[in-house]
């Protein structure tokens, strides 16, 4: 979790005004831009979608009272914004396919942002495993937040992550073995 992010979230939920929104934006926007970039969006599109998401967060701030549900809620908006964008501009977007965006998983094409090793790892996993692993290790969400976001019990999320790591560990053992 980004430094200062929990405090910024708490302050914004308690008092959703432009000042607390500014702090929240500085804490969360880089992480959201990274979310879009990793999933195949270009820099400009990532920034536009992040702005759209943060505006939605500001407008709907009054609906949320529990800080622990804040990040899953934001990430749901993040996913929906990408999905809506792909639906609106599907034919013009080359980097993200609709099916891919619906699953919220990385684009199929090799992404210059991802290292060859990481791309190989992700390609080895199933689509749902890949998404959960990205949420856990790249987006740094907690188990309970992933559980909220993907609609699975927390224990199931933990097992899925463990099994994905186990598959990777078995397939890509450290060199020398």
């Amino acid at each position, binding site marked *: 979790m980004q430094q200062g992010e929990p405090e910024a979230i708490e302050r914004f939920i308690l008092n959703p005004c*432009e000042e607390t929104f*500014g702090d929240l934006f*500085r804490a969360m926007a880089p992480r959201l831009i990274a979310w879009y970039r990793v999933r195949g969006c270009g820099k400009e599109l990532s920034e536009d979608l992040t702005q759209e998401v943060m505006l939605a967060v500001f407008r709907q701030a009054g609906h949320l009272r529990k800080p622990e549900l804040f990040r899953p809620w934001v990430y749901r908006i993040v996913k929906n914004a990408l999905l809506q964008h792909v639906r609106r501009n599907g034919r013009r977007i080359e980097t993200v396919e609709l099916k891919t965006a619906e699953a919220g998983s990385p684009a199929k094409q090799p992404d210059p942002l991802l290292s060859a090793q*990481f791309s190989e*790892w992700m390609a080895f996993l199933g689509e749902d495993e890949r998404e959960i692993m990205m949420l856990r290790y790249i987006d740094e969400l907690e188990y309970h937040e992933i559980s909220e976001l993907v609609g699975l019990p927390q224990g199931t999320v933990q*097992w899925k992550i*463990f099994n994905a790591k186990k598959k*990777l560990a078995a397939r*890509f*053992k450290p060199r020398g073995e």
Partner: protein
Amino acid sequence: MQNHITDADWLRFFDAPGDCEDNQRVREHLAGCARCANVLESFESVRQGLVTEKDRIRGAVALSDSEIDSLLGRCLAQIGTERHAGWSAAEATLLLRLLIEPICGHGTAGATINLARRRSLPVTEENLTSKSWSIFISNLSDAMSSICGAAAGRLVRRAGFSIAVQEG
């Protein structure tokens, strides 16, 4: 621990590291079992790879403070525009008052608005909001119709419903 480490043991060991009895048994087993020690090394290698990749990605897509501030500025400008897209209920009431005062006079305008406001609000509320605005306009229109005639009532109704009142 006579047998090798099970998946359930590994899961607990990774997700709830600590000095509980089960984890202690896992550590003792690892010290004497090369096979499980190799499995742990593989898990560690994957974990380290994921952490490295996260740091690398964050670094690759990082924005400067000025870029973040520029994005924030655009967001705040958008919020500011939306703010001014409507009137507050108090401002909207004042606009209506300015409209009806020349028709019925200063005192009657104030009294009629107060009466319509009281009739439109639940006992627990004191101020008009976007939710109570429609009822208020209907009540004010009825009152103006009975005091100044149907045309005045229609004018208030049309003007009242054409005013965009902010939520909240």
